[in-house]
């Protein structure tokens, strides 16, 4: 596996992780305020359709994006109305939104465009073009000619749609809002103990509606990115389960923004690997897995070391990433030492994982994570419960 392949995989992971990340952060705001939202999928789908439809008719992607966000926020308000105002069951309301979006988008698309439930293909100003940083090449063939540093710059850092950069910026923004503002504190409190917030004289209903609307805006961005950035137009069911994977990522991340970024990148990476390597040899697959472990371990180690240097966090927090890094390095260095004649490598190389396995991997992982394999995930305590002022 050469350097360019690794770069392309990372590049593809970033692209595929973006809609997951936006949806995951959307869910984070909503669930942290105590409103479970399995309607992420439906909201993304509705936003994808409306953004594509309006981007096509107005030939302006920004108008498309705005309409997509409005559509998604409207569904959010519907969810809020059902589960906050009328204290309905949040899961049922979410399922209803998914069904509604799935049917409605196709019917409206058929009425407006008569193209079998899709929008016409978008081009030019109706689409988010690649955002090329100064001095970077945009075509893969030119990039392959550059030196490694230039390749990282052109392939990985440059050449994404503007929404990818926005999504990445929303992660620290979310962290700041949740942990450094009064609004964030109240939002978290309303998900843990709404009665306490109410006692302090703050409106629980208003806070929860605010959270649900932020969720709508972020889902709108995710949907618009799917239809106008990642591909060129809306097709039936194009969200393809990403809303549910985002929920799994949210649980994996234990409802925290930075961890959400990591979880979404992991799912994006698996998706990218499934696309790139169909019928992968076991050895290559293991190499990839350990490569990822080493990368994540190293990044986490640096981040936590910085936190400790600044007097926050405990030394104990370093053990996890250090073990990951160690195991990854041990494998990459240890395998050739254990296996001087290459017999084991050859065996591993002969075992070919079928494409079905690779494409099922994100879903298998979702099941494993949801089964609680990775630590204990404790949801916000008041999640799923409608707030009743007096009992």
């Amino acid at each position, binding site marked *: 596996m050469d350097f*360019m*392949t690794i770069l*392309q995989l990372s590049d*593809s992971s970033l*692209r*595929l992780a973006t809609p997951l990340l936006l949806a995951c952060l959307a869910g984070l705001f909503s669930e942290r305020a105590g409103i479970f939202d399995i309607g992420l999928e439906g909201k993304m789908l509705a936003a994808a359709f409306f953004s594509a439809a309006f981007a096509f008719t107005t030939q302006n992607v920004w108008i498309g994006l705005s309409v997509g966000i409005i559509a998604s926020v409207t569904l959010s308000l519907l969810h809020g109305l059902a589960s906050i105002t009328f204290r309905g069951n949040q899961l049922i309301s979410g399922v209803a939104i998914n069904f509604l979006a799935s049917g409605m988008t196709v019917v409206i698309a058929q009425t407006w465009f*008569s*193209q*079998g*439930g*899709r929008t016409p*293909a978008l081009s030019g100003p109706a689409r988010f073009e*690649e955002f090329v940083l100064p001095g970077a090449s945009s*075509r*893969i*063939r030119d990039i*392959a000619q550059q030196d490694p540093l230039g390749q990282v710059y052109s392939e990985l850092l440059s050449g994404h749609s503007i929404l990818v950069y926005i999504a990445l910026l929303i992660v620290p923004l979310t962290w700041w809002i949740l942990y450094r503002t009064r609004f964030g504190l109240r939002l978290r409190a309303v998900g843990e103990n709404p009665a306490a917030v109410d006692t302090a004289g703050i409106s629980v209903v208003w806070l929860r509606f605010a959270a649900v609307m932020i969720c709508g805006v972020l889902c709108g961005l995710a949907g618009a990115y*799917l239809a106008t950035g*990642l*591909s*060129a*137009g809306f*097709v*039936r*069911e*194009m969200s*393809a389960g990403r809303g549910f994977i985002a929920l799994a990522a949210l649980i994996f991340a234990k409802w925290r923004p930075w961890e959400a970024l990591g979880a979404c990148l992991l799912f994006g990476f698996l998706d*990218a690997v499934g*696309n*790139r390597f*169909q019928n992968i040899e076991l050895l290559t697959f293991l190499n990839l897995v350990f490569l990822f472990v080493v990368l994540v371990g190293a990044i986490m180690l640096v981040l936590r070391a910085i936190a400790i240097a600044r007097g926050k966090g405990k030394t104990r927090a370093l053990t996890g990433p250090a073990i990951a890094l160690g195991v990854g390095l041990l494998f990459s260095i240890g395998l050739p030492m254990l296996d001087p004649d290459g017999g084991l490598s050859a065996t591993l190389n002969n075992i070919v994982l079928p*494409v*079905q396995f690779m*494409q099922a991997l994100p879903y298998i992982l979702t099941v494993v994570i949801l089964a609680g394999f990775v630590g204990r995930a404790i949801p916000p305590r008041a999640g799923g419960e409608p707030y009743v002022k007096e009992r």
Partner: protein
Amino acid sequence: MTTMKSLLGAAAALAFSAAGALAEPAIIFDLGGKFDRSFNESAFNGAERWAEETGGTYREIELQNDAQREQAMRRLAEAGANPIVMAGFSQASALEVVAPDYPDTTFVIIDGVVDAPNVQSIIFSEHEGSYLVGMLAGMASETGTVSFVGGMDIPLISRFACGYAQGVVAADPEATVIANMTGTTPAAWNDPVRGGELTRGQIGQGSDVVFAAAGGTGLGVLQTAADEGILSIGVDANQNYLHPGMVLTSMIKRVDVAVYDAFSADTIEPGIFVYGLAEDGVGYALDEFNQELITEEMIAAVDAAREQIIAGELSVHNFTDDGTCPVEMQ
């Protein structure tokens, strides 16, 4: 009461006259949808051409999910439609069940084979058409690496891939062919995002011509190829117009001709009918959108190969005969 009676009477008269009239033909489109710019749309165009030329009307059903297949066939058969054309290989298993129940109705299935006395099975020699566009790809490629994106991983699509690879190697024996399938479920016909990602990966491996045989997914492949500045090849319908100057050619499969023929035939013979190069059932597209991409030499070479295949001097291996391909693909 009297109103009710006259209404009922009118309804009965209507029903009678409908039965007495000449039976309407019908068509069932597959999951990709009537406007997939590809296979189903081509079938739709054939039906429309028939309606325009004869002034007749036809019934149609667009399937939304797999469970509807049998129901849709029965509904049309019981409504008296004849013949009923089924577009798409995935309708074969449902048709096997339905056909014996309606011995007086003639069914035509495209891309699938059903052995029944009232069914005509139409198959296309996709490997031959793919061979021709493969030659064009081999000649147009500058890097010596070309690629293929298939839809669902089924033998029919491997037939496209294998014919394509043989054509590429015939034009450039040193060439490398990369082949990827989008998925293993019918959703693979409608996933332009994954199609685009696969294409990017192939470009990274050096490909500069990509052939998409993937229904709606192919739109994502063609889009990415145009964005990245490489050539692409469309499928089924002529897709050259989608990105003028960036689509090298299209592997045309005249599904429209098959539908048109079925609708206008007086009697439809049961059995298997093959639309090959000789019948103009498959071929490559040349129009104002790609004329600058294809040189005289390329046309001469491809047309020579076409003549040889028709004359039987050149045989293109058909993947579905034995499940193997003589050319190695990555």
